[in-house]
């Protein structure tokens, strides 16, 4: 590797700084937003573009400096995108449950409590799925 500053280094550095800036902003959102549901937005966002930019930086470093292609970054990205919405959903469901129970540890926040869905059925957190719903198959 040649001594001194190269365009490859500049590109990789810029991507890493961009990624870590978004991670920082996401964490700052966690601190300053008013209640749990708003705070949930901060970290889920940091993990998309923040980590995405760092992974592109990592792949670019291997390609430009080492001259090899790596595929692991792609895999990290895929698994992250598959799991991040699920963990956010589980946290939200626990919050909905505590909110309905009037638990003092779960204040409603500026958005308040969600309205019941139109029709007879409640949200799935509070009610078992009905027969004939999507995903309800024979033998279930």
């Amino acid at each position, binding site marked *: 590797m040649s001594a001194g500053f190269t365009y490859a280094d500049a590109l990789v550095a810029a991507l890493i700084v961009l990624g870590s800036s*978004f991670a920082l*902003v*996401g964490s*700052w*959102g966690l601190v*300053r*937003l*008013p209640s749990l*549901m*708003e705070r*949930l*937005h*901060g970290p*889920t*966002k940091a993990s*998309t*573009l923040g980590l*995405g930019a760092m992974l592109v930086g990592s792949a670019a470093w291997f390609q430009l400096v080492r001259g090899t292609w*790596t*595929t*692991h970054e*792609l*895999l990290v990205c*895929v698994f992250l*995108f*598959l799991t*991040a*919405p699920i963990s*956010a*959903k589980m946290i*939200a*469901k626990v*919050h*909905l449950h505590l909110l309905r129970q009037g638990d003092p540890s779960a204040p409603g*926040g*500026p*958005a*308040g*409590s*969600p*309205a019941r*869905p*139109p*029709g007879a*059925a*409640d*949200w*799935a*957190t*509070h*009610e*078992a*799925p*009905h027969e004939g*719903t*999507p*995903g309800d*198959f*024979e*033998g279930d």
Partner: protein
Amino acid sequence: MIRRLFPHPGLSALIVIMWVVMVGEVSFGALFLGLVVGIIVPIFTAPWWPGRPDVRFLPAVVYIELVLRDIVVANFEVAAIILFKRNRDLRPAWLTIPLDLTTPEAITVFAGTISLTPGTVSADVSACGKFLLVHALHAPDPAAEVAKVKARYEARLKEIFHA
């Protein structure tokens, strides 16, 4: 016979591709082990996948590209909200999105897309499977937000999943 060996050919192909990507090289050993896993896993998980989602390939690729671009743009918007918007100017809201999608796979992808695009997190689905509960970080006009999400993502997913 073929059907019993490959209950989900798409899933098998996906597992082989993922395995090769994980190993990091295309070699006989990687392909062989990937194929073994790709045959065994769908057979043992078949009871939980009774349906076989019919996915249109090209619209799916276009959709992934659209979502990735939206993630980048919306990340900057949410960063601006976090950095510059005072809490008392923030208008968080619960959105109830009526679903036109009917298959569990399509609804899952829709809910995942909503969570990944910054500014909205999907929180729950109704027990009848006809409504999605979404929390928006800043939605001064909830009805417009619902219409936007439905037009941008759900309409495309309907096409992809033949719903």
